[in-house]
């Protein structure tokens, strides 16, 4: 995948790319001969939301802030679980059936990899400055509400 911005830690790699994420061969990016489990999650654009049809989602991103938040998130996950972790998110247009986010984690045993992937997607949704504009079949557009980053 051609990332336009990325960052790496000792056990993690995160970044952003334009357009949909590839979902093939992610296991190789987190593989480790000491790890017996690899878990993956693909967030895929679906054709409906809140009762309305959708044909695509246009993702808006603050690249520097998003990369910083993704890096902090990956570091937090890797401090909680003994995993190797990959986190990639899209910017721009992603059509129905295409992946907008991919997460992969490997660990010695399955529970850590599965928990790391689950926690990563949960935390991404509330911590990373990314916004969704849903596009309908007749090109109608609406921004989706989300989680406030405001702390005061």
């Amino acid at each position, binding site marked *: 995948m051609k990332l336009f911005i990325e960052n790496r830690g000792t056990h993690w790699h995160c970044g952003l790319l334009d357009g949909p994420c590839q979902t093939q061969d992610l296991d190789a990016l987190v593989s480790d001969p000491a790890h017996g489990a690899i878990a993956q999650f693909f*967030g895929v654009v679906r054709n409906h939301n809140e009762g309305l049809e959708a044909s695509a989602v246009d*993702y*808006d991103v*603050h690249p*520097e*802030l*998003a990369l*910083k938040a993704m890096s902090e998130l990956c570091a937090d996950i890797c401090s909680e679980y003994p995993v190797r972790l990959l986190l990639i*998110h899209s910017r721009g247009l992603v059509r129905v059936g295409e992946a*907008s*986010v991919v997460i992969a984690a490997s660990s010695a045993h399955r529970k850590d990899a599965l928990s790391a992937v689950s926690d990563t*997607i949960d935390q*991404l*949704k*509330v*911590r*990373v*400055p*990314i*916004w*969704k504009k849903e596009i309908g079949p007749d090109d109608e557009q609406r*921004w*989706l*509400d*989300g*989680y*406030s*980053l*405001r*702390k*005061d």
Partner: protein
Amino acid sequence: MTQIHVHCLGVFREIGDGFDVDVPSNSVDAIRGAVAEHLLRLGRADLNDVLKRSVFAEGDELLKDHMVVESSAVSVLPPVAGG
């Protein structure tokens, strides 16, 4: 008065990629107030509820309302919805 450029993200892009506001001080609180007035002038008071749940950032730093902006540009970040 100081002029601050506000870079729009998410739903705020409906009013453009950015705009300038004049503020009496460089506090985030003052900028938030000026943005609210700007939305009213544009006839987009409907975005004020989102503004109340938004956070401002300078570069890659999230700002609290009591903080002071050092540069002449900030970003306004509505509630996030990645994934």
